[in-house]
């Protein structure tokens, strides 16, 4: 007798989210099945990888991932154009890390100028991230949300401490937002509820359950993402049906395994190859657990994941 693969049917569906505009807009989410289970239902959109750039030169990045951007990363506009034109980025994530009080402490005006310049230079959708300083982000993201009005960007990250200000600014200027909680599915749901209760469209939220790198707690992120997807699909939980974000590059390149020189640890193998693999492996795990949007850094890791997606969809 021929083997018939068992099929699950799900009662819920992930919201599909479109960012950007014109012929460069991109859509992710929209599936009513677990990741890459298109044979059980529909998964109309492939996961999107946004390439990460910064408002200030990436002095704190690992050498391996600094290198491919050496010629362009001195200026966010050049960097963004390089990602769009040379690396064929489908979206760009601009992290305003230079606004952090412990870094360059750039002002909202500085951030606005960077955002406007980048928006003028590229056509692909823009994800605008703060420096993950809850207080400073509130003022920075309000200013840049207004500067990017109607450009249909993603603004983030809104957290428990600052979601009201950021969601209000995103709502007033027609953007999507990233809602980030700290590796706790119940708090993730709670934040989505609180943001929705402000009148913010729940279908314009992207959920970030907080990323972690391979070897440094990725199993927690994996598990929370997986459970969020199951709640969305099997329990039809409308507060958990937002697409999920994997903010991979920032976490993967921070860890020792992605950076340690081969000279110090010869048994770990080539530094460059190892770092790229670390980012790609981290991304792959989150993709499988349900991420619809990934933020990544190294062109080769991105290529690898694009190829993986090609093979899985």
């Amino acid at each position, binding site marked *: 007798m021929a083997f018939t693969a068992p099929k699950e049917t799900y009662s819920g569906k992930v919201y599909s989210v479109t960012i950007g505009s014109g012929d460069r807009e991109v859509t992710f989410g929209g599936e009513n099945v677990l990741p890459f289970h298109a044979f059980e239902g529909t998964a109309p959109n492939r996961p999107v990888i946004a390439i990460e750039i910064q408002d200030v030169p990436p002095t704190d990045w690992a050498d391996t991932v600094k290198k491919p951007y050496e010629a362009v990363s001195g200026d966010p506009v050049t960097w963004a154009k390089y990602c769009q034109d040379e690396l064929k980025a489908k979206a760009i994530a601009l992290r305003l890390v230079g606004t952090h009080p412990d870094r360059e402490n750039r002002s909202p005006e500085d951030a606005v100028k960077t955002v406007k310049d980048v928006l003028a230079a590229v056509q692909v959708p823009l994800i605008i991230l703060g420096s993950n300083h809850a207080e400073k982000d509130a003022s920075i993201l309000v200013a840049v949300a207004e500067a990017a009005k109607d450009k249909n960007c993603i603004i983030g990250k809104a957290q428990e401490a600052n979601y009201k200000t950021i969601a209000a600014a995103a709502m007033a200027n027609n953007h999507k937002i990233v809602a980030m909680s700290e590796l*706790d*599915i*119940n*708090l993730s*749901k*709670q934040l989505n*509820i*609180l943001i929705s*209760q402000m009148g913010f469209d729940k279908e314009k939220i992207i959920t970030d359950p907080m990323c972690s790198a391979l070897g440094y707690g990725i199993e927690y992120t994996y598990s929370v993402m997986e*459970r969020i997807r199951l*709640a969305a699909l099997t*329990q039809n*939980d*409308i*507060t*958990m049906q937002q697409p999920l974000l994997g903010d991979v590059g920032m976490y993967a390149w921070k860890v020792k395994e992605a950076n340690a020189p081969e000279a110090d640890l010869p048994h770990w193998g080539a530094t460059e190859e190892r770092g790229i693999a670390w980012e790609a492996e981290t991304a792959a795990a989150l993709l499988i657990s349900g991420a619809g949007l990934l933020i990544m850094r190294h062109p080769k890791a991105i290529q690898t994941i694009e190829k993986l997606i090609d093979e899985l969809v």
Partner: protein
Amino acid sequence: MLIIGEKLSIIAKRVREAMMKKDKGPIQEIATRQWKEGSGVIDANIGPAEDGGEELMQWMVTTIQEVVPLPICLDTTNGKAIEAGLKVHNNQWGKPMINSTSNDPERFPILELGAKYNCDVIGLTVGKGGLPADAEERAAIAAEIMGRAMEYGLPLENLYLDPLVLQIATTQDQARHVIEAVKLFQHINEPPMKTIVGLSNISNGCPKALRPILNKHMFVLLQEAGLTAAIADAKEMAEVEEERGLILDVMAGKEIEDKQKMAEIRKTLDVIMGKTLYAHSYLEM
């Protein structure tokens, strides 16, 4: 259902201060209130009480029993403090209870005390390792504790099995495993084993307004599962009497007149049974 009044706990600031100052006033006031509210036993939780535990437990037992004709549940990890408390306990008001033993060898001497002083003993179904994953694991640990009780001469009718209620805000799945465990425990032995829970932990970490709602629904579900006793807020448990009918009606799929109440009951039951994901605002969705 036997209610063990939970309010005399070192975790509460007012109680802790009274214990430190040996101020009988607040202790006796809270004990009396819990008795009036329907408690059948008064829990005296003095914490680990490594220093002066014996004296403190004796003071608690006599202070409470001076005004309330009820037995005491001696709640500490300090075995010496428990024995000291048992020596002054007035058994005229009923059998004392010990909170608690478990499947951790360090806790086995408690069974010996229980046998020596003819107490009821709470057996927490956890071992030395991590928390039990489900009802079956709890039942397996329960069977080991029962074997150990017999070994130490504690009659099984003196043993109350406690499946360990966990916080719904962080370990939601465990709520239904606990309910299942209460059912399972009764099948391990004939006559059925007695069961007990520390009820209010279900809502620990939840917004204040939600706590009584979750506690009461969990209580009704456990009662339906055949629970024998609960360490709980006696006032809340008295209030359950008014709501039990409504909760049971909704559980049976019946419509009730008050639609808002019905939604509250439905949503709370769904959260406890793991049909919807818990969030602090689950009632508002």
